[in-house]
């Protein structure tokens, strides 16, 4: 006997073969896969299976225990229900995404170590976003994108936490983790993002209403519940979760009362319900954990039912705002009835499953001696009744008749809803089908006590009275409920502005810097250099050259006026002397005689005066 076949495999294989099948076979596969996936769950033996060694890391794909099994079961079941509900659809891709999504959720639930958990976690994120996109509303794409962003953010936080954890402890197995420190903190944050925890919860009411009618079932089921599963697994008894959970519960509730969009209202409701579970995990007692798990499972069922009901309304009418709807009870009686079953379940009306699980959580809070927590949770239960079970159906199914020409939805939808309703009721009256499979089956919890009944009825009646008193006030309004998504939408816009503004400027700046700060000054400098070269250096050279030529003028002048003048003067003197001599050449003997005499006289005198020196000179010359 095979001990272990990973149920996610069915989904993945299904997703893989789906595109290649014709319509009949495809529908068969659609229904068959979730059913088939239940089989291995039945045969699964508890323990660790499917250990894979990748890159030196042990990946545990199959840790089978009560906690994982019970989630897996419900995933299979709701998968089947969802497939039935969406049976009529001809689209393939949505189903592929749904299968991958479901497979991811399955995988995450069975993941025994943090790596494989993260692996499936991411698969979930990336497949679920397609479901939102397949919604086909104008806002789907944007909402899906935001959804994906936030989930990626949560995912990376988780990854960060995982890494820190693994590095710090050297242990990658997924068990209880201390919520303090970076590792725990980041992982907790990552889980809470998926659980719709504040302040990043806004993805939930933002994205879920934009999914397709059928797709929303899957959405409402997997992401948050896997998150609850991981919280239960990882952070049982983390004190902080109580406060987070309470906040979620009340905040979600508050928003439901204000909300007009019917699926958005339900989405807030999911937050509120998950808040219960988170609180329970925070309380951390065995009962509380049981309650959390039970409530998660119930929630999957009744929330699926509610979503299916409203989905049917939307599917038939094409309208999604409470103000536009009304009086549908006459034309869609089955839908209305089934919806009411879901409504009763969620608000904890006895004999419906919510009664059990909510009771478990509230009593665990009481047992933990947390009166305020108990009180607030109780209050929230009445609020739930008020909004989901009374206000919304009243406005949609009763209320002012808008005379919409619709009928009940196609049978497969009815069947899907019915199946869910049956489960709700069945688990409400026979809770041990559930409680036996809870992680702590030994814990005794008796839901059907008198006090529980009484308290619950009181609460519900109070809520009913309030509703009747304020029925007019609770008429739907055209509201725009502000939520934290406003912040991150604005932040997104702002961020894009930032990206388009300063960052772009920075980027342009970098590019411009090269032009302006490097190229342009270089060009400028080059021009400067050019000027320097021609204007200064070359000019100096030319000036020197000119100076040299100026010098040549000078020397020319010198030559002309000094050197030549000297020679000329000598010439002139010579000339004059020659003239004199010529004049002396009189031919007159007298004159000659005179000259001879004077000459002799001079010579003699010279001889007399210089005779000695001359003699010495002559001697020296010799």
């Amino acid at each position, binding site marked *: 006997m095979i001990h272990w076949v990973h149920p996610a495999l069915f989904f993945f294989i299904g997703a893989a073969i789906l595109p290649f099948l014709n319509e009949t076979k495809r529908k068969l596969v659609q229904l068959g896969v979730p059913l088939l996936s239940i089989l291995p769950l039945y045969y699964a033996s508890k323990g660790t299976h499917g250990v894979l060694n990748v890159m030196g890391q042990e990946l545990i794909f199959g840790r089978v225990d009560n906690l994982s099994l019970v989630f897996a079961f419900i995933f299979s079941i709701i998968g089947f229900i969802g497939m039935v509900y969406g049976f009529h659809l001809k689209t393939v891709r949505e189903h592929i995404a749904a299968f991958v999504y479901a497979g991811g959720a399955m995988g995450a639930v069975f993941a025994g170590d943090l790596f494989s958990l993260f692996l499936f976690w991411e698969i979930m994120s990336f497949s679920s976003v397609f479901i939102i996109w397949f919604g086909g509303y104008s806002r789907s794409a944007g909402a899906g994108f935001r959804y994906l962003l936030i989930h990626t953010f949560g995912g990376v936080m988780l990854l960060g936490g995982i890494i820190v954890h693994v590095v710090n402890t050297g242990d990658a197995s997924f068990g209880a983790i201390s919520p303090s420190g970076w590792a725990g903190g980041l992982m907790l944050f990552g889980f809470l993002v998926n659980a719709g925890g504040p302040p990043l919860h806004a993805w939930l009411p933002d994205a879920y209403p934009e999914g397709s009618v059928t797709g929303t079932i899957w959405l409402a089921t997997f992401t948050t519940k896997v998150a609850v599963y991981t919280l239960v697994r990882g952070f049982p008894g983390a004190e902080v979760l109580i406060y987070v959970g309470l906040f979620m519960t009340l905040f979600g509730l508050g928003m439901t009362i204000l909300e007009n969009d019917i699926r958005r209202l339900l989405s807030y409701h999911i937050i509120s319900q998950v808040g219960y579970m988170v609180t329970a995990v925070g309380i951390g007692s065995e009962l509380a954990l049981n309650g959390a798990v039970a409530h998660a499972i119930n929630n999957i069922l009744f929330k699926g039912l509610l979503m299916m009901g409203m989905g049917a309304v939307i599917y038939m009418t094409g309208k999604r705002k409470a103000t536009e709807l009304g009086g549908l009870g006459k034309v869609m009686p089955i839908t209305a009835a089934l919806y009411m079953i879901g409504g009763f379940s969620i608000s904890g009306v006895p004999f419906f499953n919510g009664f059990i699980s909510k009771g478990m959580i509230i009593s665990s809070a009481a047992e933990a001696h947390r009166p305020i927590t108990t009180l607030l949770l109780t209050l929230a239960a009445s609020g739930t009744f008020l909004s989901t079970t009374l206000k919304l159906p009243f406005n949609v199914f009763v209320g002012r008749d808008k005379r919409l020409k619709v009928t009940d939805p196609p049978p497969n939808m009815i069947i899907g809803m019915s199946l869910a309703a049956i489960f709700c009721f069945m688990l409400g009256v026979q809770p041990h089908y559930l409680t036996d499979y809870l992680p702590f089956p030994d814990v005794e919890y008796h839901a059907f006590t008198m006090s529980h009944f009484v308290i619950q009825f009181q609460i519900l009646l109070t809520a009913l009275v309030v509703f009747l008193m304020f029925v007019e006030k609770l008429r739907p309004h055209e509201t725009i409920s502000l939520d934290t998504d406003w912040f991150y939408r604005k932040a997104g816009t702002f961020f894009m502005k930032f990206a388009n503004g300063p960052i772009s400027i920075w980027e342009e700046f970098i590019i411009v810097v090269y032009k302006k700060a490097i190229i342009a000054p*270089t060009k400028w400098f*080059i021009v400067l250099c050019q000027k320097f*070269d021609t204007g200064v250096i070359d000019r100096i050279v030319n000036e020197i050259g000119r100076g040299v030529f100026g010098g040549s003028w000078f020397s020319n002048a010198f030559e002309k006026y000094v050197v030549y003048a000297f020679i000329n003067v000598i010439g002139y003197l010579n000339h004059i002397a020659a003239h004199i001599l010529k004049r002396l050449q009189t031919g007159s003997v007298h004159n000659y005689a005179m000259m001879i005499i004077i000459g002799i006289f001079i010579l003699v005198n010279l001889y007399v005066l210089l005779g000695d020196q001359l003699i010495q000179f002559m001697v020296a010359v010799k």
Partner: protein
Amino acid sequence: MLSTLGEIFAKDQLGFSVLSFTIFIPLLVAVLLVFVNDEKQIKKFGLLATLTSFLLSTLLLIFFREGTPDMQFVERLDWIAPLGITYHVGVDGVSVLLVVLTTFLSVLTLLFSWKGIDHYFKEYVICLLVLETTVIGVFCALDLFLFFLLWEIMLLPMYFLIKTWGGARRNYASLKFVLYTLLGSVMMLVGFVILYLNHQSATGIYSFDLLDLFKVPLTSEKQIWVFTLLFFGFAFKVPMFPFHTWLPDAHVEAPTTGSVLLAGVLLKMGTYGFVRFSLPLLPEASTYFVPLMSILGVIGIIYGALLALAQNDIKKLIAYSSISHLGFVILGIFALNSEGIQGGIIQMINHGISTSGLFFIVGFLYNRRHTRDIKEYGGLAKQVPILAGFYLVISLSSLAFPGTNGFVGELLILIGAMKSNLYIAAPAFIGVLLAGAYLLWLYQRTMMGELNNPENKKLLDLDRIEIGICTALVVVILWMGIYPFPFLRMMDSSVTFITDRVAATQKMAESPKNDTLLIQSKINQSP
């Protein structure tokens, strides 16, 4: 006389005076050409002369003995014996490549001149041949007087080349060229004479012989004086900043062959002078002047490059790029280590090849379009793909693209310079960068983009001779770029000899008991 001629033949290691033949064959043919008038014959003779010279010079490469710093192929002959002037030629690792470069480029220039010279063709060839003789002689001369003599004679043909076959402002340019060089060479002569007299006073023998002068020590102060004098001689020729302004003018106005020879070999004479004379003869002064020279080199690099970026005239651009490139050579030489000097020498060769190549390219364009204005061109690659291809390779070589010869030189220079002085060498990288900028920009402006100018649409691509010229250059570029080791090995021991000489004095300067203390203190004071 006959016996001394016999001496020449006996001295050479090849068995015949290969250097003298290399040097004087062009001259002889030039003389012969006086009596020839047929243009074809002139071409034939000219080509024959340069080719012969080139082939002989390749013998130098083939028979060159590596691993010794000694002069090789030495020929020595008393010339003016009473004054100690000899005809003494020889090559070592520093000069042998330059000799071959000269003969090589001469062949190419002569081939280039096949057409484009429309008047005085005979005189033109004679000028080229005489120029070749003198330049080879300068690179071979081991006698300072012979060196100086050839150095001066070289001016003549160059002057005529610019003056007769030059552009519009040829008178100005040629005069500037000659005056500049003469001014420098006069100072150089004074420096030589000081060396000469020093040798005489030390040994009692008059000698201009370089190898003799090596043996005579010179006091530090004298070295500084002589260095300064020689500096002007060489720096004007290189030209170093700020003595460069003759170069753009001369290049722009000179005919293509003039530019080629001017850039290819004449400029090397300056840097060659530094390596041949300044460093080994005046090691202390060289050390002393290292900061100044390096800074001038770096300024030259950046300044030349920046100015090249500013030019609109292709030739002027390349002329300024020469200043930049020779700045590298100076930087390398005055790193005073073997990498730097080797790089400097290799860079001389590179610059000779690549810048000549660029001038050839410009010459091709000019022969076709008769303009050198960059704006007139653009998108030519489509019209003249072969030219564009060669142009690209040569440009890359010039900008020191890895795989071309330019890179080897620049790498070695920068290694040497960085080793020598990090902070001075660092700005040189800007020069490296700018070299890429101006050359590629030039290429882009001329060759790429749209072929807008209708005149350019009639351009013809290179003909067979032109392709031959370019191919020869590109082969050398790639050979030296990819496998430069043989060239480096040739000059290795000569360079080591020089660096050893310099290093020896540096060591001496470090030891305290020496008259070089003065220098040392001066160095310390210098910023």
